[in-house]
Every structure is written in structure tokens, then in C-alpha cells.
């Protein structure tokens, strides 16, 4: 049974890779098959994001959720990408030249990442469904979609966090369909695929832009953080949100530096997926867009309309879910204090900020990731880069401010604020910034080394 489930998951993720490759062909294309191999991780994550958004819309539209629906949705997405690619006259890919030399240190670090992922795979195969939120509502929602063929309003209203978006439950339900059963043990492997896909996506996007030593050092540092090791395989939305957010933020900053249209088009898909993964996804997406608007102020005539278009596109894809749960009288989207009730609880502001900062800088959770982020930003700025450090500073600062607001407005949480994650979501929130660092710090340090913003070998296409 486990082997059948594993094979099913392998086929599902191969399918997601195919869908993503189709979308990538439409959005960007590739000049050689080697280039596609380098970007395979990114294509996979693009496929996951695209499928996740499309399947959410399928659920909201009330279309029966079956294996045929999943396959058809994927084929439509991939087909649309292929048609767009043809219309844009993308040239037939050549074999191309192989990957450039990595160097001994870079290869050793990359090998350590692979070994680490292999160990996590073995853990994923044997993980029971013990994570509280996972068995409390994420997996039950997925099972409801799998067994009932759609969003069961009555069942959803009985579960905690009924208004959380259904992208992850839809992906989990897809996994059940491909596995042929509601196998909640092997389901953890799906989250291993997402982790491996994220690492491969960042590596593929940055491989031509930063030295391998920088790239793999920070991928490894983020991966070995105790919290990532312990929780990344749980079948709930937290780390999935973080991967999607980090890729959206990376694509936006690459666009700020290189101005390739595919980067912004792909970012739109990831931002909509971020908003459809968890409530705080809306906050994180807003941080990315706001940081990009400020970082591009010198070029505002060119940049701001495009960033506005990205925001509108991502919002348009996320709104149908909001319409669905409002029209079905599901509640709980906003914090207890309301959006404007913060002034009545001013005494909570400082403890909330302390809670966020102590979580974000906790060595026990994240080792030394965030102090190194600060060092990298300062070094890039001193060296003469501007767009990159300004953008990074704003994304991190706005997100920390946003998390403070979230804890501040969460009035069920008493003062002094308990850090226990059974009652305080702050640890899950700050994970997004640590995952993001795996993508941004290599760029920042490269900019610090060269003393300028744009990467050394900007992407073509």
C-alpha cells in the first residue's frame, strides 16, 4: 500500500512539473533543454502554484473534484502555456551547453543539501499525523474534498478556521486521488516534494546569478534550522505558504533588477497562490508589493503600473474564495479586535512586538539566519547597492510590523504574551522570513561583493 501511495505521489508531482513546464513555456520559454533542467524546480513550483490556484477556483465554482477534474485542470493550464508560447513564436530549444563548473566548496555544500533532503524523505515516509492543526482541520478538509467531491459547507463550518483558503487541502485531496486512498502517513511525502521543489527552484533561479558557494550555504542554513527540520513535513499550510511567498518575493526583486516580463507574470501566479494558502498570505503579499513600490520609486512611471497590474491579477484570482465563504456565512477571517480596534488595546503593542522579535531571532528555532540577513543587507548597502537592500529591508520590516499587528489584534492571547505555539501563532508567522532568506541573502551578499545591484549574469528571456 505504501509503495502504491509513493508511486501515486511521484506521478502527481511529475504531473505538476509537466503543468509548470507548460506554464513556463508560455511565460518565459527556454532556449535549451539544459536550461529547462536547471529551471525544473522552478517549473515544478510554478505548476504547484498554478494547479493550487486553479483547483481552488474549481472548488469554489462547485465543479465535482475528481481525478479527472485534476487532470483536466492541469492539461488546460499546460495547454494554455503551450498555446501562448506558440503564439509568441518561441524557438525550438537546442540541447545547449551543460551546467557551468560548481567548484569543490559549492559541490560539497550542494551534496550536503541532497543528503539532508534524503534524510527528510525517510522521515516523511514514516511520519504519523500528529501535528495539531493538521489533524484538527487541514487534513479533515482535504478528506472532505476527497470523499465528498467538493467543499462541504456544513462540514467546513464545523471545523476550526473555516475561512482558511483551500489551496493546501485541494493539493492534499489531489494527493489522496493519486495515491488511491486517504493515506495520511504517506501524505507527508507530498510536503517533502514541496520542500525539495522549493530548494531546486531557488537553486535554478539563482544558479546563473550568484556563486554556488553563496547559493548553497544559505539553502543549507535555512534547511538545518531546528524548526524547519522538525516541522516542514507536517501536512498543513505553514511551510507551503513560506515557499510560495519566498518565490514570489524573489521573482519580484529579480524583476526590479532585470525587468524581464516573465518574472512579474510568474510572481502574479505565486502571489495569488500565497493569498489562497493562508490568511496571512494576504499580509505577506501586501508586504512584497509595498516593498517593490518603494524600491522602484526612481522608475515609478514604468514600474508602478506593472506592479499595480500584478496586484490586481493576484487579487482577482483570490477574490472568488472570499465570495464563496462570505456567501456561505462562514466567519472568523478577521482578528477579534477588528481592523480598527487596536487603539483600545494599546498596552498590547509592545508585548506583541517583543513576541515577534523574540521568535524571529530565536537561535533555538532559526539558528542565526535573521542576524545574518541584517548583516547581508547592511553590507550590500555599504557596498553601493540600493534597490536590493532597500527592497529586502522593507519586506522584512513590513512583515515584522504586520506580524506585530496580528499578535496585537489577537486579543484572546493575554498579556504578557505567551510564546507557546499552541496558543500563539508567532512562530509559524516568522518562519516565512527565514525561508525567504534562503533566496534573498545570496543575492545580497553577491551585491555586497560586487558593489552593485544587478546580478553578474542576468537572465535572458
Amino acid at each position, binding site marked *: *500500500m*505504501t509503495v502504491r501511495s509513493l508511486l501515486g505521489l511521484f506521478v502527481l508531482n511529475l504531473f505538476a512539473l509537466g503543468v509548470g513546464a507548460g506554464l513556463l513555456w508560455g511565460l518565459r520559454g527556454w532556449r535549451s533543454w539544459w536550461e529547462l533542467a536547471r529551471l525544473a524546480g522552478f517549473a515544478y513550483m510554478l505548476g504547484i502554484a498554478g494547479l493550487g490556484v486553479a483547483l481552488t477556483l474549481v472548488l469554489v465554482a462547485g465543479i465535482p473534484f475528481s481525478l479527472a477534474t485534476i487532470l483536466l485542470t492541469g492539461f488546460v493550464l499546460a495547454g494554455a502555456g503551450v498555446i501562448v508560447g506558440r503564439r509568441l513564436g518561441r524557438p525550438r530549444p537546442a540541447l545547449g551547453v551543460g551546467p557551468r563548473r560548481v567548484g569543490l566548496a559549492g559541490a560539497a*555544500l550542494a551534496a550536503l543539501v541532497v543528503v539532508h533532503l534524503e*534524510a527528510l524523505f*525517510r*522521515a516523511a*515516509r*514514516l*511520519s*504519523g*499525523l*500528529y501535528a495539531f492543526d493538521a489533524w484538527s482541520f487541514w487534513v479533515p478538509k482535504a478528506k472532505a474534498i476527497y470523499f465528498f467531491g467538493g467543499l462541504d459547507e456544513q462540514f467546513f463550518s464545523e471545523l476550526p478556521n473555516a475561512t482558511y483558503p483551500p489551496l493546501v487541502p485541494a493539493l492534499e485531496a489531489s494527493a489522496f486521488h493519486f495515491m488511491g486512498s486517504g493515506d495520511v*502517513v*504517506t501524505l507527508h511525502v507530498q510536503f517533502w516534494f514541496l520542500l525539495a521543489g522549493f530548494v531546486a527552484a531557488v537553486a535554478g533561479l539563482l544558479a546563473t546569478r550568484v556563486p554556488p*558557494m*553563496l547559493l548553497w*550555504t*544559505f539553502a*543549507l*542554513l535555512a534547511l*538545518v534550522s531546528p524548526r524547519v*527540520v522538525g516541522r516542514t513535513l507536517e501536512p498543513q499550510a505553514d511551510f507551503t505558504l513560506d515557499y510560495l511567498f519566498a518565490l514570489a518575493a524573489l521573482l519580484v526583486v529579480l524583476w526590479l533588477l532585470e525587468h524581464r516580463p516573465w518574472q512579474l507574470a510568474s510572481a502574479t501566479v505565486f502571489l495569488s497562490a500565497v493569498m489562497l494558502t493562508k490568511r496571512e498570505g494576504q499580509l505577506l503579499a501586501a508586504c512584497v508589493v509595498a516593498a517593490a513600490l518603494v524600491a522602484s520609486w526612481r522608475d515609478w512611471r514604468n514600474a508602478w503600473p506593472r506592479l499595480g497590474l500584478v496586484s490586481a491579477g493576484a487579487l482577482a484570482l483570490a477574490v472568488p474564495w472570499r465570495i464563496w465563504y462570505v456567501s456561505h456565512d462562514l466567519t472568523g477571517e478577521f482578528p477579534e479586535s477588528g481592523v480598527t480596534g487596536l487603539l483600545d488595546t494599546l498596552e498590547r503593542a509592545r508585548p506583541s512586538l517583543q513576541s515577534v522579535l523574540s521568535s524571529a531571532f530565536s537561535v533555538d528555532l532559526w*539558528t*542565526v539566519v535573521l542576524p*545574518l540577513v541584517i*548583516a*547581508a543587507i*547592511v*553590507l*550590500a548597502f*555599504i*557596498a553601493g547597492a540600493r534597490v536590493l537592500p532597500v527592497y529586502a529591508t522593507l519586506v522584512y520590516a513590513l512583515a515584522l510590523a504586520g506580524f506585530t499587528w496580528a499578535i496585537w489584534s489577537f486579543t484572546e492571547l493575554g498579556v504578557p504574551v505567551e510564546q507557546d505555539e499552541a496558543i500563539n501563532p508567532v512562530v509559524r508567522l516568522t518562519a516565512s522570513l527565514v525561508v525567504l532568506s534562503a533566496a534573498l*541573502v545570496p543575492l545580497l*551578499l553577491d551585491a*555586497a*561583493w560586487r*558593489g552593485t545591484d544587478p546580478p553578474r549574469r542576468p537572465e535572458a528571456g
Partner: protein
Amino acid sequence: MPRFGAWLVVVVAVGYPLLVLAFAGAPAFPSRTDCVVAPTGEGEYQVVFGYRDSELEALQLRDQALAVGFQGTEISRDGCGRVRVAVDDIPSREVGEEVIREARTVDLDPTLEQGG
């Protein structure tokens, strides 16, 4: 200065996990044996006839145990990807060891584990 700083950041990023490894030891990864809980504390116990990879195989072992008189033998997922065949709710260690002695006379080889 920025170049030296960049190198320093990389050294810290590589060195910190290595220092943790050096002082705290290698990390432990979960394995199937994590779902086998030795009888160490108070409370109830279970007599486990074995673990199987599939429910079909587990049902065969359960039927074998039931056929020789071990009423209450059931199968359940162990949380580590295997199916456990066991009699639950054994009230004491002595009772559990008695059940195991009886089982060995009919070619079964169960073990005593801490109950859930």
C-alpha cells in the same frame, strides 16, 4: 570592507551549524522503531504479536492469534507506516508476560509494549 563582511557572513553561516553538531552531536531521525514503545511506566500494556507492512498480512496474523484463543486481538496503524497486531488493555506487566508465555507455546512470538 563589504567583501570581508560577505566572507565573514558565509563563514558564520557554515560554521554555526558545524559548531552545533560538534557540541550537541548528530541529529536523530525518526525510524519505525519510534512507534515501538518499551514497557517502562505505569498504566496499561499491550501484547504485540507483530507488525506487518499491509493490512492484508496483518489480518492473517490476527486470524492466526484469534484461532488459538487470543480473544481481543486487533489490528491498528502504528503511525510509522506499519500495521500492528496486538491485544490492548493489558492491566499489568505480570498479566502481559503470562499472555506472552502462553503464546509461545503455540508458535507465536509476541512482545510486551506500553499501551497507548
